[in-house]
C-alpha cells in the first residue's frame, strides 16, 4: 500500500473532474478545522486506488500485504499504460459530486442495468446545457444513482434525436456488481 505519485494523482483527478464539478475539492478536505484533523487520502494497492480515511490507512499498515484485500472505497484501477479506469464502486462518490445528470424512465432502467447504452426513448430528464462527450451520472427517476457514462450528444442535440438514438454511452452500471463479481475486487 502506497500513496499516489504526482503523475498518478494528476491522472486520477483528471478522470474524476470529468464527472464532478467544483465540489471535487471537498473530497480531500479535512473533516474538521482542528490542526490534526482526519482527512481522506488515496492509496494504491497493486494497481487499484482506494479512497480511505488517513487514520484507517495508517492502521492498515499493520496488516500484511498478502492479507490486505481492500481498504476504504475502491475508485478504480490504473491500466498498464497508466490510464485510470473508474469502477462502479466509485459511484457513491461521483453521485455526490456529479455535475451532469441524466434520469432514466422506469422502462429504461433494466436495459441500462443489463449493460446497454441509454437511448432517447428512455431519458426522463437531463441536465440542461450538457455538452457532448462529458461524464454524466445516471439516476433512476427517484434519484437513485445506478451508474455513469459519457454523453453521446449535447442536451440540445439529443432533444431532436429519434427515439432509438443513443444519448449516453454506458461506462459502468450497478449490474456489474453481479456480472463482474469475480473480477471487481480482485484480479
Amino acid at each position, binding site marked *: 500500500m*502506497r*500513496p*499516489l*505519485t*504526482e503523475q498518478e*494523482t*494528476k491522472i486520477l*483527478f*483528471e478522470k474524476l*473532474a*470529468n464527472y464532478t464539478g*467544483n465540489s*471535487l*475539492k471537498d473530497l*480531500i478536505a*479535512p473533516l474538521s478545522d482542528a490542526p490534526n484533523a482526519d*482527512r481522506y*487520502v488515496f492509496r494504491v494497492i497493486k494497481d487499484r486506488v482506494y479512497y480511505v480515511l488517513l487514520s484507517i490507512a495508517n492502521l492498515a499498515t499493520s496488516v500484511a500485504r498478502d492479507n490486505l484485500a481492500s481498504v476504504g472505497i475502491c475508485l478504480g484501477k490504473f491500466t498498464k499504460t497508466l490510464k485510470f479506469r473508474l469502477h462502479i464502486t466509485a459511484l457513491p462518490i461521483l453521485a455526490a459530486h456529479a455535475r451532469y445528470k441524466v434520469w432514466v424512465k422506469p422502462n429504461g432502467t433494466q436495459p441500462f442495468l443489463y449493460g446497454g447504452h441509454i437511448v432517447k426513448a428512455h431519458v426522463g430528464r437531463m441536465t440542461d*446545457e450538457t*455538452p*457532448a*462527450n*462529458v461524464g454524466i451520472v445516471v439516476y433512476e427517476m427517484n434519484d437513485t444513482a445506478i451508474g455513469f457514462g459519457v454523453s453521446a450528444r*449535447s442536451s*440540445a442535440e439529443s432533444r431532436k434525436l429519434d427515439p432509438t438514438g443513443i444519448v449516453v454511452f454506458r461506462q459502468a452500471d450497478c449490474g456489474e456488481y453481479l456480472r463482474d463479481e469475480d473480477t471487481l475486487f480482485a484480479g
Partner: protein
Amino acid sequence: MPPSKTRTVKNKHAANKSGIQGSKSSKSGPQDGIVKQKARKQGPPPSKQAKGRGAAGALKRKKKIYTEKELGIPELNMVTPVGVTKPKGKKKGKVFVDDKESMTTILAMVQADKEGEIESKMIKARQMEEIREARRAEEERNNSERKSKLDETKDSLRKKRKRSSSRPSDGGDDGEGAGIKDAVSSGTSTARPKKKRVSFA
C-alpha cells in the same frame, strides 16, 4: 599541428628529468595532446618551469585540459550506455504526493484545465446551435417564399380561367379560348363531311 622540428625522444615521460632549466627537454610538453590531471600534479608546477622565460612564456606553455565533453567523443561510445546513467544526488524511486497542500495544488490545476475545456465546448456548442438555428430560419423563409409564389401563380391561373368561362359567346378573344374554338371548328370542318339534310318545309 605538426612539430616544427623532428626530435628523437627515447622516453617521453622522462623528458623533464634532465634537471636543466630552459633546456629543450624541460620545455617540451606531453606529445599526445591529452593531458591528465594526475600527470600535471606529478610534474613540477608550471610557474617554476617558467622562471627562466617569464610570465608570458608560462601562459603560452599552459596546456588546456580538456574535459570529456569538450573532446566530443560520441556519447554512445562510453563504458556505460546513455540511458543507464542516473543523475546523482536525486532520490531513488517514486516521489509520493501525500500532503494536503500539493494535492490541493494539483487538483486546482486539473480543475482549471477541465473548466476551460468544458467552457470552450459549451461555447462551441452554442455557436453551432446558433448557426443551425439561422440556417433553419433561412430555409423556412425560402420555403414560405416559394409557397407564396406558387399560390400567386395558381391564383392568376384561376382568375384567367374564370374570365374566359364568364364570356363564352364573345367568339373567344382570349388566346387560349379562341385557339381551342378554332381547333374545334376547323377539326369538325375538315375531318367530317357535312351531313345531308332533308328538311320538310
